[in-house]
């Protein structure tokens, strides 16, 4: 006899006061007592919430759970639409299942391998050094988001894709609007259309005059202009607003854990492990979604076909069954297996690029400025609570000038 499932009335989003790095406390209680619970979504849909590492992994690895956009109910607060979302536009491979997904993914995986991304490390070093020089020239205080966390990954993704960095103000603004809960659907749609028009023009130019970059390479593949445009929107958007948040929030976390910061400064060889642990501990892409294609029995309950399942990566990444002492930031731990890049066939395509950017940029920052500190109190740091990607809006930092 199975117990009736426990029901939560909304996705918990309130982080404990004064703990900007910790997930909402309610998630830990759910994970312990009801790792698979029913949840009421903002549009009234009654779906599910998964909070344990084992169950979250099981769902995303199971082809009976779909990533198709048109089947999804959004668990995030904010704009509520009574209409069902449309199917993913051609090329938007995050919103489709195999075999459609496989076709796109296969065109792209060779371009994001561990080796290829590591070969970019020297370029990341140059870019970080230039931006650190600029910070030094400017002098403290500096907003680390504007001066470092945003431009370093933005330059890298632009060079990789073949997108003019000079246009960054335009596409950065629109990429931010896409992930903002507070933006009304019209604003989000306008941002998407603006990015699409921009990439479409670029795609046509690359078709006419092939260039030696990722979009130039893809222009020679069997893809329609619409598919290539949407792949460009997806890759550019994903490259701009993810690592940037990890760099800024990661720096904030290190500054708040001086012992860990000292360990990284003392031993740059710790960088790889430090990056994995920060990814786990901070879980900036905190919640994923899938929809059941058929009735699925899981953990003593039946998830019915058509029901949406929200997957709390931040709860899964703090699961004591998987990670000992999970609420402690410990750069020496083996944090591999975290779900911050997802799991299953949709696991982040750009994860090896993100790793290279972080393993270069974080140690470079903390060794360049041995006295780096927040220029405001921790409590004053404006947090990105209104987005499906967590982070900080600004991070004013200071250091002692020699």
């Amino acid at each position, binding site marked *: 006899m199975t117990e009736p499932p426990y029901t939560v009335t909304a996705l918990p989003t309130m982080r404990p006061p004064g703990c900007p790095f910790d997930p909402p406390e309610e998630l830990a209680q759910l994970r312990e007592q009801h790792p698979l619970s029913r949840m009421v979504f903002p549009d009234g849909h009654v779906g599910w919430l998964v909070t344990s590492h084992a169950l979250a992994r099981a769902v995303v690895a199971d082809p009976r759970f779909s990533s198709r956009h048109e089947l999804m109910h959004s668990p995030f607060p904010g704009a509520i639409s009574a209409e069902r979302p449309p199917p993913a536009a051609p090329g938007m491979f995050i919103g489709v299942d195999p075999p459609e997904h496989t076709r796109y993914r296969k065109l792209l995986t*060779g371009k994001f391998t561990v080796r290829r991304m590591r070969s970019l490390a020297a370029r990341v070093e140059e870019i970080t050094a230039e931006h650190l020089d600029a910070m030094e020239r400017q002098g403290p205080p500096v907003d680390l988001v504007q001066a470092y966390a945003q431009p370093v990954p933005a330059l890298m993704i632009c060079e990789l894709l073949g997108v003019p960095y000079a246009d960054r103000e335009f596409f950065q603004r629109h990429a931010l609007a896409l992930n903002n809960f507070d933006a009304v659907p019209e604003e989000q749609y306008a941002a998407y259309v603006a990015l699409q028009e921009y990439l479409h023009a670029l795609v046509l130019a690359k078709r006419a005059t092939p260039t030696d970059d990722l979009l130039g390479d893809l222009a020679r593949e069997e893809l329609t202009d619409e598919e290539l445009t949407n792949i460009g929107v997806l890759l550019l958007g994903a490259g701009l607003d993810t690592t940037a948040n990890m760099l800024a929030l990661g720096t904030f976390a290190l500054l708040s854990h001086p012992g860990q910061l000292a360990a990284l400064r003392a031993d740059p060889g710790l960088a790889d492990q430090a990056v994995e642990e920060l990814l786990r501990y901070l879980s900036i892409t905190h919640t994923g979604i899938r929809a059941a294609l058929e009735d699925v029995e899981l953990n003593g309950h039946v998830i019915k076909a058509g029901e949406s399942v929200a997957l709390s990566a931040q709860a899964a990444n703090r699961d004591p069954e998987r990670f000992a002492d999970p609420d402690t930031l410990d750069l020496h731990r083996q944090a591999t*297996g975290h779900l911050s890049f997802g799991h299953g066939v949709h696991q982040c395509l750009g994860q090896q690029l993100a790793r290279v950017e972080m393993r270069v940029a974080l140690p470079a920052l903390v060794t360049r400025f041995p006295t780096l500190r927040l220029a405001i109190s921790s409590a004053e740091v404006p947090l990105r609570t209104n987005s499906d990607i967590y982070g900080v809006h600004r991070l004013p930092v200071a250091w002692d000038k020699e």
Partner: protein
Amino acid sequence: MELEVDRERCIGAGMCALTAPEVFDQDLDDGRVMLLDSSPPPGHQAKARRALDVCPSGAITLVSRAGSPADPS
């Protein structure tokens, strides 16, 4: 320890090459898994197991051979 990989299942995430580079690599063209050593020496087995665990697509399997002594760990 004996390993097998399924290149059709593989999605080229690179977790195996990242976790156990002595045992796995990625094809330069399509990014999919290449098994460098199907029976890694004891010194690489823990890493290989970790790679198997973190593979997002379940493309790596441990082959159990009838009659062979149980693998340590």
